[in-house]
């Protein structure tokens, strides 16, 4: 599960960075570049060795995850209400 989450984050970061460079190739995009590079390096390290543990183990961070989901739900609901019920 933790590896899948890491893989998902890596794909998202690559997607954001690549789409950013394609749509608006500017120096501002380089600010975000360390994020996909870091995640790619971490993913390669984790997936190359089957015994390697991801840096973020979700099973030991259950309270943090619940907090993140709660915070996300709050932000999303707040914004959706603002957008569709002005």
């Amino acid at each position, binding site marked *: 599960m933790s590896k899948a*989450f*890491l893989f998902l984050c890596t794909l998202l970061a690559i997607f*954001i960075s690549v789409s950013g460079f394609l749509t608006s190739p500017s120096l*501002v995009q380089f600010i975000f570049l360390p994020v996909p590079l870091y*995640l790619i390096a971490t993913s390669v390290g984790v997936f190359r060795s089957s015994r390697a543990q991801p840096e*973020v183990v*979700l099973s*030991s961070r259950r309270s943090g995850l619940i907090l993140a989901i709660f915070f*996300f739900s709050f932000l999303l609901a707040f914004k959706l209400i603002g957008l569709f019920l002005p």
Partner: protein
Amino acid sequence: MRRLVAYYCFIIISIMVALGFLGAQDLPQLIGAIIFYPLAVYFTLLVSPRRQKAIHIPKVSVVPVATRLPDEQASPNFDFDRRMFLKLIGSAGMSLFFYSLVTKRGEAAFFGSVPGPGTVAIKDTTGTKIDPAIKQPTDGYRINQLDDTSSATYSYYGYTNKDGDWFIMRETTSGVNVGDYRYYKKKTTDGNFSATWSSRASLSPYDYFDAIF
């Protein structure tokens, strides 16, 4: 070094998510912010300290002050990761604040439209930027009087503004020139609107908009 990059990524992603959610004006921008959110969760979990005591407090027996050695007064076992995390959270908050001062739409730079510094621009349906501050020559005028009965050929529309300036628009309603609109604007020799309106048919010249204004 790796830890430093992780903190940098955390700060950048936090700023992007905060700006994305707070500044989203429509559904696509909100989806962009949602895409960033798993990354924010990842890096937040990565840099947040694990559950442990910030300060290691060993069980010590009470020793009289006179016999206590100076190097025993402060324990070196502080959790420096937590200290660094708190410092970085503070610096991230400050960065977010200053970033919000510099640019109003920071997320737009990552989604294809780089905003100008402090410029308010409106686009028309073709995507061309238009200046909303352009003042039209007839701004401030309001319709004051209408006459479409006294003449078989023309209709007259009288407009005034709050300063007492006025102009009359004449519409040709019949004949070969039907649909023509001509204008007469108050001259310095003319009186006020109510005094001149009665002689609207004899005013001259009625001309094109660009010639009058």
